[in-house]
């Protein structure tokens, strides 16, 4: 099976994530879109790992590290969302307008 099947799938998922980041204005929805992008990264890594066969263990290990970091990021992100909601009753990015450049 050509490796490009997986790579194009990953590129598609990454692009869907980019659309979500640009089009959404709810912080959690943006975060969900970024998770899609991180999964695109992992599909790439695992596909390359399979393509390289025995030499390709690094790709799978890299994917595990990406998952670990994603977990840490989501934990911190949701803590911030909860904090903001407690203070402001909204997590709409366009209402975050106390600071304009």
């Amino acid at each position, binding site marked *: 099976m050509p490796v490009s099947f997986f790579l194009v799938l990953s590129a598609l998922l990454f692009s869907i994530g980019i659309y979500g980041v640009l089009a959404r204005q709810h912080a959690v929805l943006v975060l969900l879109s970024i998770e899609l992008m991180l999964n695109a990264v992992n599909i*790439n890594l695992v*596909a390359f790992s399979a*393509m390289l066969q025995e*030499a390709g263990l*690094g790709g799978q290990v*890299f994917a595990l590290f990406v998952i670990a*970091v994603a977990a*840490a*990021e989501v934990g911190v992100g949701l803590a911030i969302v909860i904090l903001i909601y407690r203070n402001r009753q909204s997590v709409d990015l366009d209402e975050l307008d106390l*600071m304009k450049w």
Partner: protein
Amino acid sequence: MDLAQAIAQPSVDWHALSPDIVLAAAACMVLIADLFLPEESKWLAMPLSAAGILGTLAAVVSLAGEHRTTLGGAVEIDTFALVFKGLFCVIGLIVLAMSFGYFRSGRYYQGEYYFLMLCSLLGGVVISSARELVTLFIALELISIPAIIMTALRKADVKSNEAALKFFLFSVLSTAVMLYGMSLVYGITGSTKLDEIRSSIASSADEPLVVLSVIFVVIGFAFKISAVPFHFWAPDTYEGAPSPVAAFLSTASKIGGFVGLLVLMFRAFPEVADTWRPAFAVLATLTMTVGNLIALRQQHIIRLLAYSGIAQSGYVLVTLALIDPSRPEANAQALESAIVYLVIYGIMDLGAFAAAVAFARKTGTYFLSDYAGLWRRSPVLATLMAGFLLSLAGTPPMAGAWAKLFVFAAAINSEVYWLAAVMGVNAVIAAWYYLAVVKRMFLDSPEVDEPIEVPYLLRATMGVAAFALLAVFIYPAFITSLADRSLL
């Protein structure tokens, strides 16, 4: 292998890892000590952290002149690594001095703050010697994630919350984009070790794919170092964050991103430099020009420093547009000037932030209009602030002048005259807004005459920093000789 043999000939070079291990241990110690300290003596976490950083600095010094690799090449100790490990320690000490009064009087989770700061600093210390993609990525995240939390520590302040959310989303997004690029690099080369990437990317690679992957990686880093057009988060985040944290973001976090970028570009991708060099020239031009033009109309000292910091990033990006492995001498000069710039930038930018923090502690304001006549209210503070601003502007008698001159000379030497010209024009624009603040402090008359007392610790720290900048101006060989030996 029996135990005695394992102890006699360890497979891991512990000495090479000692700075990182000492700092990690110090961070954990601070966290545990905080558990047992009563509320009124939580501030003891600060001297404890300072001791930990000094211990790290001692470990760095003990490695001076060494060249070692360990853990299968994932960690490489050379002068480049040691210079930046040392710089991160110095930045950590200065930020501690700035944070002490701020967090003690504000009661913002002091113990946890110092723990998080040490963790973030550890990310910088780790990235300095990381020569492998996974380690680079994890170290970058270790810089950012604690920094995001530190930004949110003024929990009741809505601006601080929003600053943290903005910083968080941009940081996670930049990580995702950078990782996508890294995954492609892995696919092209089949390795995560930078040296292996370097040798296989030149031979086996298909050009558009190499360009695409490097562009994704660079966009990811461009967010971290707040290069235009990926800079939007920086001024808002700095303004909303507790001001010592803003100083940390503007120096440690940004320099961490630059260290990663320098290592990648000079070590992993130089053989294909022809394909991506123009992108850096464009990025550098945009970053310098836009940063300076927006800085011109800022009325808030933190935002002024944020935009001027963006412009300063642009000068460092110039050096990345000069990478050319076919001309080793010019290439080495580009790297040296980047190192000199980052070291001097770290000290002078922190100094300016420290002066702003000292001013705000007494007056409670960050607006530039309130700096009028500072000379009459506090000659010491006005002189120190002026020193740091002159250094940022790149005027004698401060070290910032050499920093700019070295980058300029590197550009001339590489025969990229138009970039040198852009840099020169920008230095003039920048001098305008820095000198406007200096003029305001010395020539305008104050609205209130109340004198400003600067806390002893802050005054001593700023004094040492200003003295160091002055000394480097008079005797630049001190720092250039280090940079000379820091080839990647």
